């Protein structure tokens, strides 16, 4: 436990870090009782997550549904109050900021949502939707806002003349472009993208991914990119964080993570992704995990992946919670029996080497 809670304290913040998340928790209480609702438990949606994001980089967060990645995103931009931990944005602790003091900071971190159909108000015109954050933050007169909105529409590849149209007049991909334009409107430093392409068709998905990359290059944006699709995350991210049941299981740079995953869960995820190459795809035998993701209300003891883990070692994994072991270069993974190499097939992965992984990271800032 101690390693995973080892976080950054403010004094050693790397000036290159735009966002530092330290041991953030979000527990949703479960109450019971007839009149006096007493809390009998909690859904540990996010349970002690620490990481940092450097200026101008893209951090991918990947995990299956229910792993807490969307909750984490909402905690970061303070749509949800955290239960514990600290969020440092651009050198400021924003964890406890009130609504009003948070307001100027909201300009600097925006969000793109998954469902381009649901996240745009169908009764508002595109101009109003994109211009809304500008109005909220009082950035300019009506005509200035209009000019800015048209500029933004052009930036995201829409016809600025479509300023007066309604969202339903656009296709899914175009709507997501509107969402991107809205997020860009206030010149944010950080954009949290929550599954921005999962509702889109493949060809359109590529357009949006390319657009996001272009915008990052042009405006020096920092992204937190949340997705369940490992292909997409790999394509867009510089570093990738894998979550399972509210906890970080592995963080590494993109190339390292995909080439040398250390955590068996990461390995299982990678091997489960179908590859659009019949020769390659059929040759390998995927590591098929048994059963379903357990409930976050009552997560398994110690390493919460242990009931499904192909390398589960009884009496260890279910007793001692693995800290985030370091594998050098900021690569950390929470496993006592990290994968020795990759790829492995299903039978190989079961043979965990008895040797312990390296010692836990000493107290120091998380992956640089």
């Amino acid at each position, binding site marked *: 436990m101690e390693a995973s809670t080892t976080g950054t304290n403010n004094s050693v913040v790397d000036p290159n870090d735009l966002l530092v998340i330290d041991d953030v928790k979000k527990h949703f209480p479960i109450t019971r009782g007839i009149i006096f609702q007493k809390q009998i438990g909690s859904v540990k949606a996010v349970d002690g997550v620490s990481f940092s994001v450097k200026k101008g980089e893209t951090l991918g967060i990947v995990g*299956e*549904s229910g792993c807490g990645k969307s909750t984490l995103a909402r905690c970061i931009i303070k749509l949800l109050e955290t239960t514990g931990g600290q969020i440092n944005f651009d050198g400021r602790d924003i964890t406890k900021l009130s609504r009003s003091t948070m307001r100027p900071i909201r300009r600097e971190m925006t969000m793109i949502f998954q469902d381009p159909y649901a996240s745009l108000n169908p009764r508002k015109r595109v101009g109003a939707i994109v211009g809304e954050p500008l109005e909220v933050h009082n950035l300019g007169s009506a005509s200035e806002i209009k000019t800015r909105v048209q500029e933004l529409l052009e930036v995201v590849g829409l016809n600025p003349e479509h300023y007066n149209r309604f969202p339903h007049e656009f*296709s899914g*991909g*175009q709507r997501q472009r509107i969402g991107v334009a809205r997020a860009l409107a206030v010149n944010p430093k950080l954009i949290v993208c929550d599954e921005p392409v999962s509702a889109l*068709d*493949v*060809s*359109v*998905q*590529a*357009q949006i*991914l*390319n657009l996001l*990359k272009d915008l990052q290059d042009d405006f020096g944006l920092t992204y937190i990119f949340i997705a*369940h*699709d*490992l*292909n*997409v995350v*790999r*394509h*867009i991210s510089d570093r990738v964080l894998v979550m399972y049941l509210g906890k970080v299981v592995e963080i590494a740079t993109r190339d390292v993570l*995909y080439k040398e995953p250390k955590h068996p869960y990461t390995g*299982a*995820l*990678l*091997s*489960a*992704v*179908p*590859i*659009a*190459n*019949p*020769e*390659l*795809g*059929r040759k390998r035998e*995927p590591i*098929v*995990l048994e*059963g*379903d*993701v357990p409930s976050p209300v009552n997560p398994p003891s110690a390493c919460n992946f242990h009931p499904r883990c192909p390398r589960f070692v009884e009496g260890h994994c279910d007793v001692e919670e693995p800290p985030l072991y370091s594998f050098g270069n900021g690569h950390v993974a929470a496993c006592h029996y990290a994968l020795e190499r990759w790829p492995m097939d299903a039978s190989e992965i079961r043979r965990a080497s008895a040797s312990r992984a390296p010692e836990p990271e000493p107290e120091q800032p998380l992956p640089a």
Partner: protein
Amino acid sequence: MALLEVKDLRTSFHTEDGIVGAVDGVSFSVEKGQTLGIVGESGSGKSVTCLTIMGLNAKRNTTSSGEAIWKGKNLLTTKPRELREIRGNDISMIFQDPMTSLNPVHTIGKQLIEAVQLHRDVSNRVARARSLELLKAVGIPYAERRIDDYPHQFSGGMRQRVMIAMALINDPDLLIADEPTTALDVTTQAQILTLMKRLQEEFGSAIIIITHDLGVVAETADDVLVMYGARVVEHASVEELFNRPQHPYTWGLIGSLPRLDIDVERLIQIPGQPPSLLRPPRGCRFHPRCSYVMEVCKTTVPELLPTQREPDHLQACHLDEETKDREAAKLLESMMAEAG
């Protein structure tokens, strides 16, 4: 003889805005024990094709033509009564969203037993035994206990297993799976795809798998049908398709996919949006988005023709084969190069 032979299938919906040609002249055949993948984006007509074969389109405001020959019978002209006997018995289907595809107010046991008894005159006990057998076969733990549970008590993956059990319960000759894993997580998807493969070996059914995910197709299908704008643009064996794709749309699809096995800095993007089927483009429906567009593409519909080298590889593009081979090779090479 092919198990199912579809010839020139056309389906259109009459809406308030006009006629939507959802399927426009689709032909293919499915062999016994084989898996056919149908790939395309939403609105390409891949699902409607299968619903038409099954006679599951809404009757109102829908017209269909063409043939779907199943054991000598044209399913499109079969009486509803006979078609009902085929559905769920000879041909069964599983759907995209396991969360909504089961009736929430009945136990899964009841729904499985119903599936049996619709086609077999057997007692409840026998039907229940059969249901249990299938639940075990699809890997539902504690099947004896869970058979009396309601759908909401199962996870998504488990529900899809139940759907598969229900589809296989009468030993169908053909299983149509419409995006069976789209709504599932990647590890669950792997479970389901593995399960389907295993069951195909056990039950010997032919499968039509409809998906937008090239990865799923690459891993499961023997033959692949690529659909675009209600038409088939390419039809080939899975190796042919991935090694020598012959249609610019297929190139776009392959190129636009972020992949685990190869690295690209920038995805190849297909510009524009999928066509409206209410007012589809003239000529080749892909021409407004195609970077190889020629004058002929704008006026003449390209026929689905075999390539010279491989008669089983059908494609519908006006480009000459040499160019296509060259462009395909270039695409794969560029991707490999970046990967390297």
